[in-house]
């Protein structure tokens, strides 16, 4: 077990209290809304702000009292913080130099890393002349250059274009599996989170609200935030065997649950009708259109009613059904795509 931490940081109007355990070679992603305290947690792990309470244990050694420079930690900051007076190469060579390597060695290592990041030609460029994504990649190289045992990344891929992101993401994974250390990563991008993380920790308002494998969390979100993140409609209700009652509606689901339970279904499982459809009355109600939004090559329709839901429909359907805000509409949800699980 590599990292085992309890992080408590008190701020005037905010309190962060997290338990975090990251195994060897494991990548844990902190996911959460803006202001949830993700950056604060990373800074506490890096030693840049003191813990109000708690402890940080890395490879069995307590490090919460060590100053930042003695922690075997590499950090990629949210806004890069590349040293403006050093070339890209010297930015990356900075860490190895501080670890006592010779200038030549440090530079060779830095050059190798920049090469791997596809930045060989930018070695001698100052950060101010780099584009956003180039700067981010140099920051990544700089953090990797110290061969940290704990790697902390605050939105490391946010400024990368899709193409580079794919490459850097693979590069990052390769490096992460190559070493024994633990990785804690913060991202807003659910795709990045899903792809990179072995385990997700969802943080809201300073506390962990859900934790688990990405697939598991995607399938069974436990908060509104997570549900929206993974594009699901989520409600909390009361299960009585094969249905879950939410706000007066009874949802039929694939699973059987009793007691407090969640129901979740994707927007594409929601069908809209101008008049009450015939057929089985399960998962069927009337609502009012709240908003219409383009979403990729389909349209997402928000419907208010006993429960507020999002539905994905084709542009053709929008025209056909005249889906304008304010219109009353019938909503049904396919039971086959509705999941229920204990709350």
């Amino acid at each position, binding site marked *: 077990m590599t990292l085992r931490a309890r992080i408590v940081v008190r701020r005037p109007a905010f309190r962060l209290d997290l338990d975090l355990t990251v195994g060897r070679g494991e990548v844990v992603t902190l996911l959460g809304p803006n202001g949830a305290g993700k950056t604060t947690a990373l800074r506490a792990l*890096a030693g840049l702000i003191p813990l109000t309470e708690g402890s940080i244990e890395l490879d069995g050694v307590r490090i919460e009292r060590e100053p930042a*420079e*003695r922690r075997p930690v590499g950090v990629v900051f949210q806004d890069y*913080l590349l040293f403006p*007076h050093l070339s890209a190469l010297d930015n990356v060579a*900075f860490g190895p130099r*501080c670890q006592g390597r010779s200038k030549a060695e440090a530079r060779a290592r830095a050059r190798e890393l920049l090469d791997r990041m596809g930045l060989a030609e930018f070695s001698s460029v100052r950060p101010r002349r780099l584009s956003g994504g180039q700067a981010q990649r140099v920051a990544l190289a700089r953090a990797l250059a110290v061969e940290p045992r704990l790697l902390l990344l605050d939105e490391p891929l946010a400024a990368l274009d899709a193409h580079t992101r794919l490459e850097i993401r693979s590069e990052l994974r390769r490096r992460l599996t190559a070493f024994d250390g633990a990785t804690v990563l913060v991202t807003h991008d659910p795709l990045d989170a899903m792809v990179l993380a072995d385990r997700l920790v969802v943080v809201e308002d300073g506390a962990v609200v859900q934790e688990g494998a990405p697939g598991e969390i995607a399938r069974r979100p436990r908060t509104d935030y997570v549900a929206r993140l993974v594009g699901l409609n989520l409600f909390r209700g009361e299960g009585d065997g094969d249905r879950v009652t939410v706000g007066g509606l009874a949802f039929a689901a694939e699973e059987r649950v009793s007691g407090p339970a969640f129901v979740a279904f994707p927007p594409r499982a929601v069908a809209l009708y101008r008049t009450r459809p015939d057929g089985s009355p399960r998962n069927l109600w009337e609502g009012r259109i709240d908003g219409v939004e383009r979403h990729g090559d389909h349209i997402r329709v928000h419907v208010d009613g006993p429960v507020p839901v999002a539905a994905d429909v084709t542009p053709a359907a929008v025209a056909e059904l005249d889906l304008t805000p304010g219109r009353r509409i019938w909503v049904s949800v396919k039971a086959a795509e509705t999941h229920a699980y204990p709350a």
Partner: protein
Amino acid sequence: MAFLVLPLAGLLIRAPWSTLPQRLAEPQVIEALRLSLVTASVATVVCLVLGVPLAWLLARTDFPGRRLLRALVTVPLVLPPVVGGVALLLVFGRRGLVGQWLESAFGFSLPFTTAGVVVAEAFVAMPFLVIAVEGALRAADPRYEEAAATLGASRFTVFRRVTLPLVAPGVLAGAVLCWARALGEFGATITFAGNFPGRTQTMPLAVYLALETEPEAAIVLSLVLLAVSVVILAGLRDRWVGAAA
């Protein structure tokens, strides 16, 4: 702007240009100029060595008495230089607090030596450096220092390789102020180090003596001092600013 330039113009107009070449050839003038440049430069180095860490202490750490220390730093600024010289004599003079001990331990005495000139100039010029550098440090973004710390840099390495380069323009400005102030130093120098040609007689002291005998010579000497310092400063700036860009 005119406010700064006009008086200079006044001097230039009144200067007895005809005697200039002859005066420049005087060995005493050359000697005084050399001494001024050397002592001002050494004093600047002394100030940098002592003052930059002090500025860092003031800007980046928090200890009891920091505010008092910061106020004390401005002391030599406000102290009339002649009194500053007296104060230095009281401490480093042969009968001074420290001077006594220096003399008996090493047979070494500061007043009336070139080293004494450096001490007097450094004492007077130090606050300029400290205050300018502290201002620059406060304006700099401390998160770069945090980034360096996470890369394993010790406090000293952070300071040397990140903080200093980031505040280089401020340090440069401070050093320029410091050097120029040291170059123009008069009161503390003449009081503490005396006015010995070739040893402690810097240009401002030579100007003072010239004022006693030939006021116009004094103007010429001042202009020589000015010209040299302006040339050096303009040169330096270009080099440094060039390197930073």
